[in-house]
């Protein structure tokens, strides 16, 4: 693994600080809110990027994993356990210190799970669901895989929409902040804004670091060989199915972590987060960035998500993403950054030395 591969990560860190300073300098700190949210969505997108680009598997159901993370975190930290207070398992959990005693808005006493427990349960559930779904789904290819993942996403959406426990079409609101570390609370509260911005971008950098390592490792080489010829890869003893499954579960976990944290940050989650439109948007952003270009995926993913969250596209939000998706796939299936810019940049940077 060469240090060259890590340089952009430092660049991303510098960008993080620069963005903060820029907002301070121009007096536009309110941008930090959307930048924080974009970083979390960016996490979903790079996870999906590795799945689509390197493992070659499309998933039109990733909003489902995001929603499993977000909804479980929201439900476990807001739904009152008081009615079950006498049950042995609640008392056991209480003794284990994973239950918070508080008051609801009417001043009645309330028992909920701690955000840490909720987070672990949510992410583990998403990972397990990905594992169970992934084993049969990843045997499929092409249209069948696309439809199966789309079907999975739709089922998740319907379940959250239909169950009163998950708030039906209203979703879940009043989700408390997440005291992740002694000095860090993931919440949308103004006083935590700067810290949350740094937290989300640090997480994005760490997530990126992990994926870059993964791509450079034995797993990554195996994945690339799968991409060029699955038969040849299997003939050289690579268990294609296992690698695909690992990446699928990993990308689901990325989506779920983003879902958990963004839900705490926004203070709520609604069924639209699980919708097909969201899943397609993630696919679009990966496609725009370039399937085999993780940095392109990151840049376009975070950038376009930020613009979308700022409301730049107005009521044409989904239309813009649909158009981008079609145009990129028609004219530059390697992604916007993949076609002309990369050779150009390479010439500019390396050309002088070589």
């Amino acid at each position, binding site marked *: 693994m060469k240090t060259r591969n890590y340089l952009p990560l430092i660049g991303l860190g510098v960008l993080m600080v620069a963005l903060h300073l820029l907002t301070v300098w121009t007096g536009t700190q309110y941008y930090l809110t959307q930048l924080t949210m974009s970083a979390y969505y960016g996490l979903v997108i790079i996870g999906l990027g590795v799945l689509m680009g390197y493992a070659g598997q499309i998933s039109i159901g990733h909003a489902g994993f995001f929603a499993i993370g977000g909804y479980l975190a929201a439900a476990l930290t807001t739904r009152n356990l008081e009615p079950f207070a006498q049950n042995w398992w609640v008392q056991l959990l209480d003794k284990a210190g994973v239950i918070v005693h508080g008051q609801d808005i009417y001043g009645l006493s309330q028992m909920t799970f701690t955000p840490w427990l909720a987070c672990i349960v949510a992410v583990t559930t998403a990972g397990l669901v990905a594992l169970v779904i992934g084993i049969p789904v990843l045997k499929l290819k092409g249209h069948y895989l696309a439809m199966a993942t789309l079907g999975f996403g739709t089922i998740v959406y319907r379940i959250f929409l239909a169950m009163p426990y998950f708030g039906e079409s209203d979703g879940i609101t009043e989700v408390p902040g997440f005291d992740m570390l002694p000095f860090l609370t993931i919440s949308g509260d103004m006083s935590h804004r700067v810290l949350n911005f740094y937290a989300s971008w640090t997480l994005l950098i760490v997530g990126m670091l992990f994926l870059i390592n993964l791509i450079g490792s034995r797993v990554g080489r195996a994945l690339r060989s799968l991409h060029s010829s699955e038969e040849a890869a299997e003939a050289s003893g690579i268990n294609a199915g296992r690698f695909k499954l690992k990446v699928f579960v990993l990308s689901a976990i990325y989506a779920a972590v983003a879902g958990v944290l963004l839900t705490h940050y926004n203070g709520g989650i609604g069924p639209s987060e699980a919708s097909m439109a969201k899943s397609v948007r993630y696919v679009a952003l990966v496609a725009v960035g370039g399937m085999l270009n993780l940095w392109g995926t990151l840049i376009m993913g975070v950038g376009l998500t930020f613009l979308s969250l700022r409301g730049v596209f107005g009521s044409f939000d989904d239309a813009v*993403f649909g158009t981008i998706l079609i145009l990129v796939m028609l004219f530059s299936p390697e992604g916007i950054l993949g076609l002309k810019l990369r050779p150009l940049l390479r010439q500019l940077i390396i050309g002088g030395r070589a």
Partner: protein
Amino acid sequence: MSPDLFFQYLFAGITYGSIYAVVAIGFNIIYNATGIINFAQGEFVMLGGMISISLLHFMPLPLAIASAVALTMLIGAAIEILFIRWLQSPSVMRMIIITIGISILLKEVALHIWGESIRSLPYFYGNEITTFSIGSVHISPQVVWVILASAVMVAGLNLFFKSTPIGREMRACSANRTAALLCGINARNMVTLSFMLSAGIGALAGCVMSPITYTQYDSGSALALKGFTVAILGGLGNSGAAVLAGILLGIIEAFSVSVVPLAFQDAISIAILLVILFVKPHGLFGSGDAARLKDF
């Protein structure tokens, strides 16, 4: 369950099932011609309904439906010419993403033209409460329209593919594109034609079902998923089996209402889709040996 209720569910199942079958045949026509699954298939159904509802202000119902079908066919042709015709052997993933993009665009265009409101065509005969009775089972005349229209479409398509020159040329293209080209068939035009046909039958289905199921800008997606389920259930590309599979899914769905809450109804048919994909991806009536040669 009383016998009356049983037949009531049965008829509801057949009605919805015949719509699913038509959507599935739409999938099949394009799949046979190109090997593409058109993820925008459901949007054709929505467009048919929406356009006919708008045209109804200016013309009588039969003319509005005919014009809506014709317009949707033109839209289908335009989509093929703009987005698909000139691509050179695109990868499956690329085609999936492009047709998904088209589906989003059509939905968004519909949203900006017609808004979020739920619309419907009037009942072709009588109104919501008009029924006629067979024994003690009450059936809306619209149900008859739906089943009749579906049957006519299936029979018409069958006739078209079997006995018209163009239909035969289309089948030749799907059987062996190179051989068809060598025989002087313009394969590209056949693909355009398959999009038109598929859009046309989708639109007609959208018109006849509109009074019962209503039409909204996003009503296409769920229908597309179910249509695809049916297409898979019958074996992709096999339109005759799609009719049986469609009615089967419709009936399962109708009877599922008596067991699970209505909100989960869509989840049931999608769960069937997943099970079929995992267990028998070549469909209930398809041949497993032939399926092994295809690229799933």
